[in-house]
C-alpha cells in the first residue's frame, strides 16, 4: 500500500500511524521494566519515559483516527489493529535485553526522534506542529538522559563497556530503517508536512558519533538495515507477542468500556 501513490489523507494517516506506533511499541517495551530496574531512580525514570511515550501515542493516533474519518479513535487503533497494520520501526519492537541494551535502544531512537520532531515543528499541518512541540520538550529530556547513561555505561567498567558495545552491535542494523523513505514520505515532503527521512541521517550520525565517542564506544561500520516495520511489510516476530499482551482485554471483551 505504501508503495503506491496515495491521496493526501491516506498518506497523512500512514505517516501519523508511524509516529504513534513507534511511541506505542517503545512505550510498551520500556514499561516492561517496571519494578525491575537496577536502582530506584531508574525505575522512576523508565516509568516516566514510558508515560511520555504513551501520552504522545494518544496524540498521534488520536489525530490519525480523526484524519482517517472512519470513527476510529486512538484506542481503536492501538488495541484493535493486527500486526500487519502496525507501522512501528523494528528497533522499537526488539526485546529489552539487559538494562544497557534498553538504554542503548532508547538513545538510538531518541536521537532520531529529537531530530525528526525538531523538523516537524515547522510542519505545514498545524496539528502536527502542535503535537511535535509538546513531544519535543519531553524527547529533549529523554535524549539527555539516555545519552548520559550510554556515556556512563560505555565508559564505566570493563564489563559495562563490553555489554554496551555488544548492545550497539545488536541494535545497529535496526537504525537504518528510520531513514528509509517511500511514497508516503514523498507525499509528506510534497505537502510540507514532514521532512525526507534520508535528509536527517548526517545530523543523526554526527550526534550519535559524538555520544559514542564520549562513551568510548566504536560506531559500527556496517550500513546494513533490517526493514519492514514502518511500511508494515515484515515486522519482527516480537510484535505479535507484544500485541497479544497489550490488546488482550479489548479482544477478549469486545465492546466493553473501561
Amino acid at each position, binding site marked *: 500500500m505504501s508503495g503506491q501513490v496515495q491521496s493526501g489523507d491516506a498518506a497523512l494517516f500512514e505517516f501519523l500511524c508511524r509516529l504513534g506506533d513507534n511511541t506505542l511499541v517503545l512505550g510498551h517495551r520500556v514499561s516492561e521494566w*517496571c519494578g525491575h530496574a*537496577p536502582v*530506584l531512580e531508574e525505575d522512576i525514570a523508565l*516509568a516516566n519515559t514510558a*508515560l511520555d511515550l504513551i*501520552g504522545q501515542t494518544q496524540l498521534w493516533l488520536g489525530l490519525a483516527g480523526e484524519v482517517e474519518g472512519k470513527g476510529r479513535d486512538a484506542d481503536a487503533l492501538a488495541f484493535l489493529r493486527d500486526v500487519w497494520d502496525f507501522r512501528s520501526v523494528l528497533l522499537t519492537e526488539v526485546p529489552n535485553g539487559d538494562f544497557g541494551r534498553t538504554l542503548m535502544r532508547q538513545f538510538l531512537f531518541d536521537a532520531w526522534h529529537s531530530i525528526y520532531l525538531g523538523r516537524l515543528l515547522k510542519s505545514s499541518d498545524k496539528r502536527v506542529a502542535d503535537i511535535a512541540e509538546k513531544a519535543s520538550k519531553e524527547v529533549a529530556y529523554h535524549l539527555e538522559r539516555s545519552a548520559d547513561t550510554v556515556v556512563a555505561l560505555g565508559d*564505566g567498567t570493563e*564489563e*559495562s563497556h563490553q555489554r554496551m558495545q555488544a548492545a550497539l552491535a545488536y541494535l545497529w542494523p535496526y537504525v537504518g530503517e528510520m531513514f528509509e523513505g517511500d511514497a508516503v514520505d514523498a507525499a509528506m515532503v510534497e505537502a510540507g508536512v514532514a521532512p525526507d527521512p534520508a535528509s536527517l541521517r548526517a545530523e543523526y550520525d554526527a550526534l550519535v558519533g559524538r555520544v559514542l565517542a564520549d562513551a568510548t564506544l566504536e560506531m559500527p561500520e556496517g550500513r546494513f538495515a533490517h526493514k519492514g516495520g514502518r511500511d508494515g511489510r515484515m515486522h519482527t516476530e516480537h510484535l505479535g507477542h507484544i500485541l497479544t499482551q497489550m490488546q488482550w482485554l479489548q479482544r477478549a471483551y469486545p465492546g466493553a*468500556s473501561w
Partner: protein
Amino acid sequence: MYAQMIKSAGTGVKSPEEMTPEERRFQAHVDANEKVEPKDWMPDDYRATLIRQIGQHAQSEIDGQLPEGNWITRAPTLERKAILLAKVQDEAGHGLYLYCAAETLGISRDELTEDLLSGKMKYSSIFNYPTLNWADIGAVGWLVDGAAIMNQVPLQRTSYGPYSRAMIRICKEESFHQRQGYDIMMKMAQGTEAQKRMAQDALNRLWFPSLMMFGPSDKESVHSAQSMAWKIKINTNDELRQKFVDQTVPQAEYLGLTVPDETLKWNEERGHYDFAEPDWKEFFDVLKGNGPCNTDRLTARQEAWKEGKWVRDAMMAHARKKAAAKVAAE
C-alpha cells in the same frame, strides 16, 4: 497502612520518674506537638523504632510496584495505561522520599535495601497477594490506597519532622490514586456482566487482606503505647480499621458490590459497622513468608538488584573518573 507489627525498641512507656532528664525534655517537646528534627537529641529507641517503621513503609512502596506493574502492559486503554504508569512512578517516588527520611536517622539506603533483600525488613502483607484481573487495579487503588491513607493522614502530624513532611507529600498523591481506583471500579461495576464479575471477584479477594493492612488489634500492646506516646503512631489499629470499614461499606453499596462478610451490619448503638475480623492465622502465615506471592516478589527484587549490579558499578566508576578528570583539569 504500610507498616504493620512495628515493635518499638525498648520495653514500653516510661514514667516521668524513670526517664533521664534528657528523655523528660524530649517527651515534653513531643507532648507540646513540637517536631523532632534530625540534629535534635532523641532516645535511641525512638530512632530505632522510626527506622523500622519508615523502612517498612519505604519497602512497601517499592514492592508495591510489582502487583500493579503486573497490569501495565495489559491495561485496556491508553488512558488507563498512562494513569497506571503515573501511579507506579509515584509509588517509587514515595519510596525515594521515605528512604531520604530514613537516612536522616543515620541508616543508609544500601543498608535498608540489603535488609529488604535478605527478608529481614518486612513490607506490607498486602503486596504478597496477586492482582488477577483488571478490576484488581481498581480495587488496589480504592481499598489498598484507601487503607494506607487512613493511616497516613494522621501521620502527617507525626512527631518526626522529615517523616511528617514526607507524609504530607505522599498523602496528596495517594488521595488522587484512591479516586482513580474508585473510578475504575465504577466503570467495571456499571459495565458488562463480565466486568461486574471481575469487580466482585476483586473485592472478594482483596477485602480481608485490606483489613489486615492495619495489623492485629494492638490496644493491649506495649509497643503501640510507646509509639503513641512518641507520636509516631497516632491511632490504634482497631480505630483505623473501624474507620476504614465505615467509610468503605457505603462505597461498595454505591457500586452495587457485596462485601464478602455475612456478619457485616450497621450497629445503630455504636454508630459503626460490626464486621468480621480477618483470618489472623493467614496474616501471620503471610508475614512468615507463606503468602501467595512472597517468594515471587522477593525473588523479583533480588534478581533486579543482582542483575543491576554491573550498572550501579559502572555508574560509580564513571562518576569517579569524571571527578578525577575534573580535579586534574583544575
